[in-house]
């Protein structure tokens, strides 16, 4: 009897190495897979919906402060370490992996106004309402030692903000003027003023490190050059800017968080029109921080929410809020670009995912595959923030109505970008 057997060519099903994927025979003939566009569309739609369904951005809340959290700082070398300063003068150092406070310091009397870490991560600086600048060691005191600052500088006026240089042993404080300090000295190396203001925040440019930006209460943003010890330019906006943040990938771009609910992204070289106006907040924006990739930034607002904006979009990508989160005062994007931390009035620091629906851990690959599909579907306006779109339309129609019913030419068409910049002072 003859037995007929199926014999296949092993070339078709045998892997060359163990690491290769198991071969699955597939026929890519387009005739066998019809309706590609509608099917893809449905898939994209489902992916987007599922993304929303599985969006669980909130990770943890770090509680322990006994007053509102006023400032946050990242550790430059360790992802798991975060520093926070509260309104009662307490500074806490947190471990994010254990989600516990590792160290508590009573740093100042009154508010801790600003906190920053040294670029090497060995020490950090705080400024407070008690007119002092203090430098602390990052490691805790040894057994039997007192918790004491390394250096204390007593100033003449209150310092409202501090930032450390990215490469040198220098830091900048702000108050009535912007002071630049050498770490070894007790008096500033140089002080820069332009008129009389109370300056609320000062930030070093992370790329071209000699540049600084500050914002003051008389509605202006001033840029300084540290090498030449001179201010460069001043731009006056409609309302006061609370803080600014430089883009860590694009040397000349910075974003300003304004009291008029908006954020403004400026090109430093052309201050007369912002590159982009970011619109979504419904109350004053208090803090802003860039993602280390330079593609997005996060903003904290008085409206009890945190929003994530793409740099080139005027609408936010995401809004984070919870029932218990009060006015968000400070926000930071962690330096691996995966998480966001925000400190709020009700004494908590909250940890969020930067991508709400991102799976952290094993199933990551699958997730990445969905992304472009979503991108495609994002083109469809009905998926993109319909509510914001409607508001925008309403706003536009309101202005259109006003124009329609007033004397021709009396309500000119002004672009959103040009509206908010009052003047640029050389």
């Amino acid at each position, binding site marked *: 009897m003859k037995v007929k057997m199926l014999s296949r060519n092993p070339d078709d099903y045998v892997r060359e190495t163990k690491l290769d994927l198991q071969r699955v025979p597939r026929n*890519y003939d387009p005739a066998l897979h019809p309706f590609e566009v509608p099917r893809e569309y449905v898939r994209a739609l489902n992916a987007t919906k599922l993304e929303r369904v599985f969006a669980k951005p909130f990770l943890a809340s770090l509680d322990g402060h006994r007053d509102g959290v006023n400032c946050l700082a990242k550790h430059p070398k360790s992802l798991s370490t975060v520093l926070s300063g509260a309104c009662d003068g307490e500074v806490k150092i947190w471990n994010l992996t254990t989600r516990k406070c590792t160290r508590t310091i009573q740093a100042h009397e009154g508010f801790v106004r600003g906190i920053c870490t040294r670029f090497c991560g060995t020490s950090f600086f705080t400024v407070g309402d008690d007119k002092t600048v203090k430098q602390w060691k990052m490691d805790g005191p040894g057994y039997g030692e007192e918790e004491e600052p390394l250096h204390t500088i007593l100033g003449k006026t209150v310092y409202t903000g501090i930032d450390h240089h990215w490469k*040198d042993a220098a830091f900048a404080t702000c108050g009535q003027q912007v002071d630049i300090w050498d770490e070894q000295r007790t008096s500033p*190396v140089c002080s820069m003023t332009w008129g009389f203001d109370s300056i609320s925040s000062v930030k070093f440019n992370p790329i071209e490190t000699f540049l600084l930006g500050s914002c003051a209460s008389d509605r202006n943003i001033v840029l300084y050059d540290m090498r030449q010890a001179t201010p460069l330019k001043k731009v006056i906006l409609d309302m006061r800017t609370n803080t600014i943040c430089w883009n860590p990938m694009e040397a000349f771009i910075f974003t300003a968080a304004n009291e008029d609910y908006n954020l403004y992204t400026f090109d430093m070289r052309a201050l007369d029109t912002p590159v982009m106006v970011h619109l979504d907040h419904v109350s004053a924006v208090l803090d802003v921080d860039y993602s280390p990739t330079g593609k997005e930034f996060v903003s904290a607002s008085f409206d009890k929410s945190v929003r994530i904006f793409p740099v080139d979009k005027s609408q936010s990508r995401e809004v984070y809020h919870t029932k218990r989160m009060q006015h968000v005062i400070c926000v930071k994007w962690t330096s691996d670009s995966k998480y966001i931390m925000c400190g709020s009035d009700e004494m908590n620091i909250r940890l969020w995912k930067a991508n709400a629906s991102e799976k952290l851990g094993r199933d990551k690959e699958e997730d990445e595959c969905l992304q472009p599909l979503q991108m495609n579907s994002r*083109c469809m306006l*009905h998926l993109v923030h319909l509510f914001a779109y409607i508001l925008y339309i309403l706003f536009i129609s309101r202005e259109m109505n006003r124009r329609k019913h007033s004397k021709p030419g009396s309500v000119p068409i002004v672009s959103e970008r040009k509206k908010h910049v009052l003047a640029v002072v050389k």
Partner: protein
Amino acid sequence: MEPKMRQDPSLKSRAFRPRERKQAATMNVTRNVEGLLALSQQEQLVDMSNSYPLSASEDEEDSDGERKCQKLLEAISALGGKNRWKLAERSEASLKVSEFSVSSEGSGENLVLSDLLGAAKKLPLLTVVKKQLNRVRSKKTVETPLNKEEAERTLREVAFSRASHTLSKWDPVVVKNRQAEQLVFSMEQEPSAVAPLEHMFSGWKARTPLEQDVLNLLHKNRQPVTDPLLTPVEKASLKAMSLEEAKIHRAELQRARALQSYYEARARREKKIKSKKYHKIVKKGKAKKAQKECEHLLKANPNVALEEVGKIEKARMMERMSLKHQDGGKWAKSKAKMAKFDPEARQARQEQLAKNRVLTQKLQVPPESEEEQECLAEVATLFASEGMSDLSDNAPNPWMSRGDKVQTEPEQLPELGAHEFSKSEGDGRPVVVEDILWKYCEPREFPRKRSELNHNAKPVDRQTDKDSNSLKVLSESMALSQKLSHQPRKHEMSSVGIVKEKREKQQMIDLQNLLSIKTPAVKSLAVPTIEELEGEVERDHRQLIKEAFAGDDVIRDFLKDKREAVEANEPNLDLTLPGWGEWVGAGLKSSTKKRRPLLKTPEGSQRKDKNLPNVIVSEKRNILMAGHQVQVLPLPFTHYQQFERTIQNPVGATWNTQRAFQKLTIPKVSTKPGHIIKPIKAENVGYRSSSRSDLSMLQSNPKGLSRRDYKQMRTCAAD
């Protein structure tokens, strides 16, 4: 001028000679020309000193009397005794001042340099100074400095332009990053430097009670705490044998043990083996051995050796006949497939191929000795005596008979033959000749390939052989084959003509007959039957469909639908509402005047499916669909066609290969969890960053402006 004048008396009192003064002045002038004010002051001093002797004579005339008078008065008062030296006292502001203080006579007019120079004109020694002075006079005075605000503003402007210039170098980098398909942020990973333990311990002290206890314990047991980290005993043990020695020793031992175990294992294994293959291999090995022995025998005892050789030869022939070793069999094919993955299969195949090679090889070198030639001659005569048919019958090689068949179709083959000969020309003619020779020596052993290659030539040779009976004939055939290789067709024709004309013709006719018989048969039988069958099948099929859809008339339904669709779109409606604007009731007709106008379709609009009878194109806007349609063209696209094209190309894994899918769905930004992303650095992008730190630049240059900047500032201010 006044302050300078005030110095004059002191100059007078010092006994400066004019020449010395002048020299000093010139030196001064040459030293710092730019110290303009100082210079002019000096020059005026020079003037004064020079002019002094001249002007003094004039002065003295009127002041002499006065002075004398004063002296006299003083002398008189001194006589009184008390105030011998009464100082001159100035009680009121007067234009006249005594000789020791400044005289401001003629204060209304300024003293001008030229006045003084005019006096100096006569002196020849002062020419150098004069020249210099003239040069100074030609220069402009320094402008008044800008007010503070203005100066700061220009400073800021210059600094800003400088800063934006340094920033502009980032433009290409930023543009590149913005347009990049993917940004990968898992670049440089700094290797974590592990500090040695000693370093860690150097600054460490036991502080807590627990630590101190542990330390005490260690001390008690003489455990080293910091540097050496080894107890004396451990050190001694280390010293006993050096590491290298120990290693070598151990390696030797290992090797000996391994060898032993290997041999043991081998012996055990060989004892047990049942495999055919193994035995085959063993057999082969034995055969090799036997061959060697045979060679020995050949030298020692040729007769026995011959027998042995005969046996081997027979075995070989059997093998060759069996066709086992060919590559085309089923088994061989399957092995060829598996060979990539299975080493055994590969080996088996190789063996088989090797065997094939051996079997198809030419056996011996061409005969050279006389004996062999004789043998050849015998064979030739044998062939000659017997007929062609006999030869073909006797030949054990079935392929040999093919030659006749081939010859029967000379019309078809010549081209083929020519082709093949042209191929074989590459090898050279001698090969052909050799083949011919060998064929008669050992027809069976003739390699198949060759026989195929030359099968045109063979029969011809054989025929020519028929007439001859010696090697001479062979040589003729050689010549013939040479000719053949040049013009095969002609040769064949001629050979046919000469040798076997009749038979050839008969065969040709037969062949033609055969063909002529065959063709009509094909035509008459096969074709029409197939067509008939097909027609029947089709008819059946149609019938079946007709029966299945007997009830419904699809076409009429479609037409009806279309008509309805067209009518629905045409609002030719009578919009009269009974009772509007007139009386209603039985027997009342609404007046045509008051009838509302009909709604008519606008004439310009035509249905798209007007000329398409088989299609209904709905022109209604589907609201449900509208929600899914794109209202605004997304940003990177400039034309809707571009966007449509990209949307048309599917990105999913169903339509794309794995590689393409991965490429299409590459994320815009890729980051590694746990990797700290630092701000971009100039060095990483290929730019040079300034070697000096910002702080040191600030401290060294508090104003922070170079000369170039001042220049720029000045131009700014001028603007």
